Every structure is written in C-alpha cells, then in structure tokens.
C-alpha cells in the first residue's frame, strides 16, 4: 500500500499537551511539513513564544529558543543577525503577538527581518485560562469580559494582517484558517510561501492562522471550527494582504 498521508518528520512522535481538537496541532503539522519539504530542518531555528504553544520546542525536531512573552520577533532578530544561513521562524499566539508583543512584531516587519512568523489567532488567551485578547470578537464572553467584549470599553478587535500590510518591509502577509480540509490546504500553501520568501532573502513574512480554543470557548472541537467560520472569518477575511509580487487577494 502506498502511503498517502504521513506524519511530518520534523514533528517529534510525542503526545502534545494541547487540548483535544485544538488546532494548534494542525498548524504545527503544516509548519513541520513545510520544513520537511524545503529540507531545512538542519538549519531551522524556531522561536517558541509564551502561550499554549510554549512547549512547541518539544514537538518540532529542530533547534529552538523559548522567548519571553511577546518578544519572539526580537529573539528571532538576534538569531537572524548572528546566523546568516539559518531559517528562523517564530510561532506566536494572539495574546503574545497582538497584545504585549505589538511593538516587536511591527518593528521586525519595519526592518523586514528575514524571518517567518506563524501567528495563531484564536481570539483568546488560551494558556492562562481564557482571558480577553485584542483579537476577541465584540460580544465574545471571556473570563475578563464576563458580559462579552464591549466595544465602548475594550474597542473592536485588531486586524493584525491588515495593519502589518501597511508596512513596506512586510514582504508577505496572509491570513488563513484551519477549520476545514480546504482551509488547511490553503494554509499550508501560505506557510510554505512564507518560508520560501525567507529562503529567497525576501524579508519579513507572516501567516495569521485562525485557530480554535475549544476549551476556553466552551465548545466541542467541531463546534469551535464552525464558530471560526461563522464569526471570525467574516471579520478576519482570509487572503494574501501583501505578496513579494505586490499582489493582494483578500476580500
């Protein structure tokens, strides 16, 4: 029998600590497949952030650094400048990247650091137990927005990809979802393209992956995927917001 789907080699054969059905796992697989396909496992250096993905270093089979909350792009910059032929990527949640790490991501984009950012937007702080994130939807209940996020007090959610796309140094910026086989296939293409931009020396690339948090959303994994499709995608349109060619395919 011919193998039509196999687990990526750059992923270690261990159990993750992620909750059942959490799409962090899917995104890990896509990154690992990309590393496999590009053959860069031995020069990849990942930067784990603080969030549910903090232990991602245990799951990827390559060199890793674990960065302080929000600072993965700065850590990646330090690596980038010292190991010229490394393939440097960060893996960050939305609390990490879009809240405490706003300055670091904006300025890594401005400098067009030749790194790839995998940005997991699950509209919540997963690891700390479901507090409001800057990406939390208006009306969404979290442990720090018990009545649902209130626009007049906490504002409307931030669209990171759109914001970063205004920065000339942000060479490749795309938003994808992980909530269906078709979305996952597109997500894979975007992540691979982001790494390819880096390999070509093209500068900063980022893929925002809409992701679920069944546990803190209080839903089953499949319900959570449907919630993304129904509530998040309309506000966070999928597509490419900047490409090296200058194209844009969102809407």
């Amino acid at each position, binding site marked *: *029998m011919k*193998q*039509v789907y196999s687990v990526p080699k750059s992923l270690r054969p261990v159990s993750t600590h*992620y909750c*059942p*059905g959490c799409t962090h796992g899917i995104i890990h697989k896509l990154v690992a497949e990309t590393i496999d396909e590009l053959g860069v496992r031995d020069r990849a250096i990942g930067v784990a952030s603080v969030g549910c993905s903090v232990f991602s270093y245990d799951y990827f089979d390559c060199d890793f650094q674990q960065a302080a909350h929000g600072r993965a792009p700065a850590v990646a910059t330090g690596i980038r400048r010292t190991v010229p032929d490394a393939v440097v990527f960060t893996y960050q949640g939305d609390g990490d990247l879009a809240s405490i790490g706003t300055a670091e991501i904006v300025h890594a984009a401005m400098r067009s650091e030749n790194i790839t950012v995998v940005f997991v937007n699950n509209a919540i702080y997963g690891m700390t137990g479901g507090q409001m994130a800057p990406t939390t939807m208006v009306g969404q209940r979290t442990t720090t927005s018990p009545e649902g996020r209130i626009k007049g007090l906490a504002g409307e959610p931030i669209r990171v990809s759109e914001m970063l796309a205004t920065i000339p140094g942000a060479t490749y910026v795309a938003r994808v979802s992980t909530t269906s086989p078709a979305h996952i296939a597109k997500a894979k293409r975007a992540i691979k393209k982001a790494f390819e931009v880096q390999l070509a020396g093209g500068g900063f690339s980022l893929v925002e992956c809409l992701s679920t948090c069944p546990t803190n959303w209080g839903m089953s*994994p499949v319900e959570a995927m449907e919630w993304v499709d129904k509530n998040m995608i309309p506000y966070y349109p999928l597509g490419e917001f900047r490409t090296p060619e200058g194209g844009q395919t969102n809407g």
Partner: protein
Amino acid sequence: MKKVVVNEAKCKGCGVCVNFCPKSALAMADRINSKGYHPAELANEAACISCGICGRVCPDAVIEVFKP
C-alpha cells in the same frame, strides 16, 4: 494493513477526523485509551477512499493513510 492507521494511544478523541471524513468511514470507538479518551477508528474500511483528509485534519498527528 488498514487504509487508515490510528495511533490509538495518542488519539485525544476530539472527533475532528470523524467530522471531516467525506465518506463517514470513521467513528469514535467505545473503548478508552490510557489517556482516558475514546479513540477514533476506521469503522467502515470499505467506504474509505484513502483521500487522506482525516490525516491532514487530525490535530494530533495520530493518523496515517494508505492507498491499496
């Protein structure tokens, strides 16, 4: 070998594979694994078209898919 091999010990019983299988070939087993979850299993191998979707959507890298 089955078309779909589930690493039962690692399965978290999330049901995502079952949900996305276009042929409804998968189901959650009655048994409980060492983690306390009901693992997914290929309940209807005949229906399976080896499309690989279950493998691709499984968040825990638990499934490998083969084509005869």
